[in-house]
């Protein structure tokens, strides 16, 4: 798989999973924290991608 978006989602998933597992013990808190990290990664990637879209280089 070499899709930029697919790799971004895969990367965000693994980082969110491990970070949430390290930082919290309660499953609900792990889910909330992991979802925030995952959403942050994917959202920031999409926003930055669109912001850079008009750039000629």
């Amino acid at each position: 798989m070499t899709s930029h978006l697919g790799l971004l989602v895969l990367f965000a998933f693994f980082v969110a999973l491990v970070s949430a597992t390290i930082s919290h013990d309660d499953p609900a808190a792990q889910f909330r924290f992991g979802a925030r990290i995952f959403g942050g990664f994917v959202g920031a990637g999409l926003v930055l991608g669109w912001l850079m879209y008009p750039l000629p280089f």
Partner: protein
Amino acid sequence: MRLRFPQALGYTRFVTVSAATRAQTLPPLAAAALAWAVPGLGHFLLGKRQKALVFLVAIPAMFVIGLGLSGRLFPFDFSQPLAGLAAVAARGVGVSSLVAGWLGYGQGVVTAASYEYGNTFLIVSGLLNMLVALDAFDVASGRK
């Protein structure tokens, strides 16, 4: 976990040891070293088995994906500081990164479209496992 205690009278007594007690019996540095060597092993020995399973699956998966994306396991060449730091970071995965290097994996294909993605997966998998090792140290020393 059951530990065997030989008794003076010639019989053997088995004692059930709780996870908290086991955490006290595993030295923090040993927990961190084992967590570095095999992702999740430190937490497993400290009784945190669900966390151990997540680390055992997720971190090696990231590492293997990085190799599959033609990423490079950089050599320890600090004349190029960023490459040297990338080498240190990727070795954070532990024994599997050393074995992969010995077996010739991780040569990196610079012309591949996924080369930089592969490097990112390799480096971040190592950095995450370093965090896991630090967490195992904290758990073993009773801070968490």
